């Protein structure tokens, strides 16, 4: 029972990160109908930048800020320079271009930093508190929950309470009509990519200290988990992404804890297959408001 509790909290903490990462995927999907397969590589790139700054200045928080800001900039650049010019007549094209970006980012990172693992220290202790003799949560887990919670609340406020959020939704929902009404559709698309990449970078910064460390390929498996989370929730649903993230986190924790860490990726694959074949629109799909 102790172990079950421990795994549950561990899973929720991991799931929070998957949720943030899945949210980033959902943001871009809603804005541009592209699943950003370069999201993981982009997050790794900004994490490298963040940790470089942290090493140089000795301040983790400055590095953290640099990583998230870097995500904002990188997302905008990727949209403005590359994604805007993709021919969207076939859904394959966006995916292929994103995969090309993955190769570029991994290659450049390898050239600058080498192919070895670099340490990614956590800002807080990862030793769990004991409550009633049961190890449950660490300071770091609390930090993860707080950070992801803040992101979810801020995004919700942005999309439901501000004029910019309304414009972004309008630009995604009916681009032509929005343009006629004076919404800068292209700008909103860039903003969507920038926001999504920043959220992805944040998720990367949160998850890397709990994994092996910084590596150009560090987010490959993570991307698959987050993609699964987004699909479980339905690619169109932000709430679904959060719930999907937690589901995937718990699944990985239980499978990793009881069956062995090497089985966990297979569990993700099985979950993905089951959801895709059983409920391809996700568990939280609403009636179709817009066809891609």
């Amino acid at each position, binding site marked *: 029972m102790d172990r079950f509790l421990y795994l549950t909290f561990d899973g929720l903490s991991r799931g929070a990160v998957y949720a943030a990462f899945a949210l980033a995927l959902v943001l871009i999907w809603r804005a541009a109908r592209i*699943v950003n*397969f370069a999201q993981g590589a982009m997050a790794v790139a900004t994490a490298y930048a963040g940790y470089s700054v942290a090493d140089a200045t000795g301040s983790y928080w400055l590095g953290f800020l640099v990583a998230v800001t870097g995500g904002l900039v990188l997302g905008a650049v990727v949209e403005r320079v590359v994604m805007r010019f993709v021919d969207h007549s076939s859904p394959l094209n966006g*995916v292929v271009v994103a995969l090309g970006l993955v190769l570029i980012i991994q*290659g450049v990172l390898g*050239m600058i930093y080498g192919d070895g693992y670099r340490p990614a220290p956590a800002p807080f202790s990862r030793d769990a508190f004991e409550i009633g003799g049961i190890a449950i949560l660490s300071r770091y887990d609390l930090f993860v929950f707080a950070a992801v919670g803040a992101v979810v609340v801020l995004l919700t406020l942005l999309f439901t309470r501000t004029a910019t959020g309304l414009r972004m939704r309008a630009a995604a929902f009916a681009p032509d009509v929005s343009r006629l009404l004076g919404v800068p559709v292209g700008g909103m698309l860039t903003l969507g990519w920038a926001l999504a990449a920043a959220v992805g970078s944040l998720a990367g910064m949160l998850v890397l200290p709990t994994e092996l460390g910084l590596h150009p390929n560090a987010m490959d498996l993570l991307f698959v988990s987050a993609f699964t989370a987004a699909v479980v929730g339905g690619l169109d649903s932000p709430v679904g992404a959060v719930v999907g993230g937690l589901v995937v986190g718990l699944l990985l924790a239980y499978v990793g804890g009881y069956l062995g860490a090497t089985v966990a*990726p297979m569990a993700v694959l099985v979950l993905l297959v089951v959801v895709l074949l059983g409920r391809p629109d996700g568990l939280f799909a609403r009636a179709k408001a817009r066809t891609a």
Partner: protein
Amino acid sequence: MTILQDATKTKDHQKSPPKSTPLLLVIAGAIIVVALTYVLPPFRNYQLATIGAYFCVTAGLTVLTGLNGQLSLGHGALMATGAYTLALWQNKFDLLLPGIALAVLVTTVVGGIIGLAAARLRGPYLAGLTLAVAVVVPSITSTFDKTFNSDQGLSVALDPPPGVIPVEQWQAWLCWAGALLTVLVLAYLVRGRFGRDLRAVRDDETAAKLAGVGVARTQVMAFVVSAACAGLAGALFAVLAQSVSPGAFPLTLSLFLLMAIVIGGLGRLTGALIGAVLLVALPSVAQSIAEDAGSQHLEGNLALTFFGVVLVLVMLAAPGGLAALKFPRRSRRQKG
């Protein structure tokens, strides 16, 4: 739009050469390869063999992605399936040709299973699923480490080539025999009714269904055919490296394969050949640049970056690839 497409299709069809051409081309290719293996030094022969092995899988993948519109990032994993099957067989029985046949068979079955799922998925969902398959390979080899020996992988027991033939030359013959056979079969398949079905399903599923084409059946078949090619390529890679390990079939390999078929022109077998040559030539060039620069970090990563840049540029500027290098009129559906 539809009429226009139909018109171009008919034109394509009329332009397609008479049925004897693939056979002649393959025979010519075989003669060239055999002649080459006698003049090239051993290392070049090894590279030639590698091109042949890559050609098998790129040819299969370009039929799947280019002609049928299904994007697979799992072909690296399918190659791993073929390679491991051959390794396990060789270490027990040591009969190469039946082993290769078995590798193709096993991979075909695995590909059929993935294809059954793939036929119900579209676009990014299919890419995501096959990506998951590619990423899961190391996890499988570690979990069943009694069979697959985890990250170290297996060595492949091979008899020395018959007679006094150098081993590299023999490898080149073997790989190109596989490649040319694959291409011959594929060339006839895509010229016939199967190829028409593939294109029909890619272009418009509803229209294909109305015309009596079994959409799901065609998609599964495309995956099966393509998987068989990947299995053969995997087995040949196992023969070439004389070992198999998950590190030889990373996600990057699947992305490289995608780059190869995109740069050569999706759906074209000649494009698959161009791609296979580039897959071997570019890393080799990048390697020598890196050695000149004396930087360890450049090694490998230079080729990686270059492939990525090429992939993005080709997709943005010339989606038809190098084999169709003209400047197509493109319409942007939405202006930013």
